[in-house]
Each structure stands twice: as C-alpha cells, then as structure tokens.
C-alpha cells in the first residue's frame, strides 16, 4: 500500500538563487507520477527535498502526517524507511560489491538470516537484469548497470514510496523500454507511490498516471497524464512534444526578441496521445484508468488518432 505525499507551497533557494518557488502538488497514493523539466530546473533538488536531504526555505512535505521539512532528525529516519530512492548516478557504495550493496539495507534494518537475504537479493537482481554481476564493484560496471543496481537496492525493503532520478539517462533504448515496463509491473505488484524524474519524452508519455513540469523556477503544471498530453499550454506542449517552437530556449528562457518573432507562429498541432503501458504480469494497477477517461470526463477532445495505437504490453487486449 503506497503512501500519499502532499507538497504545499514549497520554496527552495541556495543563497540568493531561487531554485523553485511555491510548488504545490499531491502525489496520489499508489500512482506513478513523472516530473519533467529542462536541465538545471531543480528536479533532483526537488526529489531530495521530499526525503529531507535538503531543507526547503518555505512550505511543507507531509507524508503519513509527518512534515519532512520541519520534523526532528529521529522522525526523519523513521519516515525514510518508507522510501526507496534511486539517485541520478546510482549512488552505489564504492567499496562494496553489487551483491553487498543490494543486501546492505536488509543487513542494516532486518534480522533476516543470510540465506533469506540471499534469496531476496537474487530476486531483485534478477528483476533488474543483474544476474552474473553480483561480485562486481560499482567502479567496474557501466553507468546503466549502476543505475539498475541502485534500483535493486531501492526495492529491497519493499518501499511504499519510490523516488527515481532519471532511470533512463545513460540507458540504451531497449533497456529503457524494459525498465519502463518494470516500473509498471512493480507498481502493480507492490502498489507503491512512484515519482520518476526524467528527460525521456517517451517515458513521460507512456508510463505515468500523472505528469508534472518544472519550468522557470515554478511548477508549470501537474495533473493526470491525459490532461498534460492534451494541453495546449505552450510550455507543456513544447516540452512534451520535444519541439523548438515555444517559450523554452537553449538557455533557460528565450529572450524577448526571439519570443516576439515567434509570436506570429502558432504551436504545431498536438500529436495523438499514446496508450499508457499496461502491466505485463497479468496484474492490474489500482491507478489504472481506461484510455481517454480523463478527456471524456472533462470534455476535452484529445488530438485526432489518440489511443488508437496497439497496446505496448505483451498479451494485453486493446
């Protein structure tokens, strides 16, 4: 059973530099949310604020009644047991083998015997495709492997909230597809709340139940995926469709001249909304909704051709 994360009016500055201000959103329990945003907009900082590694200047993060932003160190360590976190570069302990890395949380926080631990570790390593690499040191493997090992370690204590920082950077397209399917299957199996930070448009379009976009020091939009994918709001449409036309430039914001020059152009039409990935393990996710439901309920006409593509998950019917 996942836990809900309520973020209200969160503001973070480093010195005088505002990273983002007044961010409010709720990660619904048991749902997968994706956080998007151009590089350097503070997505990783946001993730770290949710686990109390970085203290915000204002606002609160409430998980199971505890405010992460203001609670005591002791409470923080308690609440963190609900979390599994995959850091941007995997954050493997460099002096331990992958096996020991993945076993580490179990050895620290449970009284399980070594044979029980072995069973759990091997299960998670198989899940993330790391069989055969148990005895390698983190320095000896590729970035993508480190990332998958980080994921295995994050999963080992059956977290209720999974925070994942760029699972797909440094991964080839095939592995990215596998890992995306893995998230969906995991969500179905353990029902945890997921927050995935990513740059990958394909991930953002096919995996989550909710999408958020951090842009220009604030949360531009957060809501159900169909809401964002059908949104004509320029920033959202530009980012979700990887276009050059729009308010986001090469540097953080385009300058006024360039925007004025573009003002005459209209945004290109939205591409069709693809179907969301479905679990491949025969389970049903609690947060799963019929394709197009949000659009119907809110009277939004999705772009033509939406939801007509074949379902990506093997074995699932349309």
């Amino acid at each position, binding site marked *: 059973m996942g836990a809900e994360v309520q973020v209200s009016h969160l503001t973070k500055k480093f010195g005088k530099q505002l990273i983002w201000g007044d961010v409010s959103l709720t990660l619904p329990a048991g749902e997968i949310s994706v956080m998007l945003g151009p590089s350097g907009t503070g997505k990783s900082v946001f993730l770290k604020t949710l686990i109390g590694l970085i203290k915000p200047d204002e606002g609160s993060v409430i998980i199971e009644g505890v405010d992460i932003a203001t609670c005591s160190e002791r409470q923080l*360590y308690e609440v*963190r047991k609900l979390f599994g976190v995959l850091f941007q*570069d995997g954050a493997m302990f460099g002096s331990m083998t992958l096996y020991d890395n993945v076993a580490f949380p179990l050895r*620290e926080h449970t009284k399980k015997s070594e044979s029980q631990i072995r069973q759990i570790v091997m299960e998670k390593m198989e899940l993330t495709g790391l069989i055969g690499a148990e005895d390698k040191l983190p320095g000896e493997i590729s970035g993508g492997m480190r990332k998958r090992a*980080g994921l295995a370690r994050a999963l080992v204590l059956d977290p209720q909230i999974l925070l994942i920082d760029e699972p797909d950077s440094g991964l080839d397209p095939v592995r990215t597809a596998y890992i995306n399917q893995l998230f969906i299957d995991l969500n179905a199996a353990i029902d945890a709340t997921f927050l995935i930070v990513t740059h990958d448009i394909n991930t953002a379009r096919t995996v989550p139940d909710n999408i958020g976009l951090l842009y220009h020091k604030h949360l531009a939009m957060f809501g159900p995926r169909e809401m964002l994918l059908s949104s004509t709001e320029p920033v959202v449409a530009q980012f979700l469709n990887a276009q050059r036309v729009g308010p986001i430039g090469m540097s953080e914001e385009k300058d006024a001249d360039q925007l004025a020059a573009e003002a005459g152009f209209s945004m290109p039409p939205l591409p069709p909304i693809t179907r969301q990935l479905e679990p491949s393990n025969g389970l049903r996710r609690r947060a799963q909704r019929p394709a197009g439901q949000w659009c119907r309920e809110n009277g939004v006409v999705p772009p033509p051709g939406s939801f007509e593509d074949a379902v990506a998950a093997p074995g699932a019917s349309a």
Partner: protein
Amino acid sequence: MSLGVVAAPARVAGGLFAFMLDVLVATFRFPFQIREFLQQAWFIVTVTIIPTIFVAIPFGAVIALQVGGLIRQFGAQSFTGSAAVLAVVREAGPIATALLIAGAAGSAIAADFGARRIREELDAMMVLGIDPIHRLVVPRVWACVLVAVALNGLVTIVGVAGGYFFNVVLQDGTPGAYIASFSALAQVPDLLQAMIKSMIFGFLAAVVAAYKGMNAKGGPKGVGDAVNESVVITFTLLFVVNFVVSAVYMQLVPPKGM
C-alpha cells in the same frame, strides 16, 4: 561585502565546531563500528608509516647536527642527548606526526568523503536510515587518534636513535654522555604531553578532513578543492594548537632542575 569577508570563515569555523560535537556525541552511540575502526587504522598506518620513518631520521639527525655543532662550541657536548630529547620528544615528534597525519591520512580521508559526497553515497546512506557520522566518521577519527599516538612514539624512537647515531658515530660524542644527559633534562610529562598533543592532532586532522570532504561540492574539482583546503586548514590549525599546548605545558610542568 565587508561582512562577507568575516562571515564566511566564521561560518566554516561554526560548521566545523558543530560537526566536531556531532562526532563526539556519535562516538558514544551504540554500536561502535569496530571493524571499520580497525580497517581504517590499518589503512592509515600503511599510508603513513614509511614516510614517518623517512621524516623522523633526518629530523633527529638535523637536530643532532645543529645542536651538536653549537653545543660543542660551548664545550658542552654532554648535553647533546638532552637537547635531542627536548627537541624531538617535545616538539618534533608531535609536529612530524601532525604533518604526516594531515598530509597522508587527512588527504586520504577528505578525498574518500569527497568522492562519496559527489557520488551521492552519503545521501544514499542517510536515506537508508544510517548516519554517516556514526558509521564512517567516528571510526576514522578514532583510528586517526590511535595511529597518531603510535606514530608519535615511532618518531620519538627513530628520532632519538637517529640523533644518537649522528652524535655518537659521526660527531664523536660519547654514548654515555648522550644517554646520561637524557635523564638530566627529560621527564615523564614530556612524553605525556607529546602523546596528548598527537592525540589532539589526530583528532583535529580527521575531523577537518571528514568535514571538508563531506561538504565538497561541484563535481570532481570540488573534491580536489576539499582535499586541498582540508590539508591547509589542518596544517594551520595544528601549528596553532601545538603552540598553545606547548605554552600551557611550560606553565604547568616546571622544567627539571639540573
């Protein structure tokens, strides 16, 4: 602007002091990380022991040469031994130890923590509910203290022996005079204060190194900067502390009458 010039170092000093208290508090938290402590102590020994010997021999020799030459002009060769004791045991031992602990052990610790910081290992550890100060810093700090004391002993022995060799073999002093003058000036508190000094040095060097490493920022370059700063800060700090402890010692323990 003018405030920043004062405020920035003050913040570092404040942060360092708070960190030191954290380390002391965490020391008494159960369970003490014995394995990590032993591993680290061994590691520090391996990086310091050879340089220590190579620093200590010339230290003793230079003192014997300089002081020996001077004293001979006064016609008081018989006091070369005691001069070596005073210089090596009281000052050179702890200072050489400080240089080695800060230079070899401190830089290794700072680099290690810096790398862990930028690889987000420390964050990962905290998220897994483990306090890196308790788990990683405390064992390193006390390993450093232990090794500093041991190194101080080694420097003293090697230094005095080196002094003996130069004085007796090369400068034609007599062994009897060298050894006899030991007991004329040296006293047990000399050894004790040297031990206490080296303990303080070991502690400070490890705390500064860990603090700087854990607060490294900005990628690999940040780690280099952290190592560099930690060595510079430690050196400065240790020489100041050495002076203070020596001054206090002189007040507390009267020199031995002759």
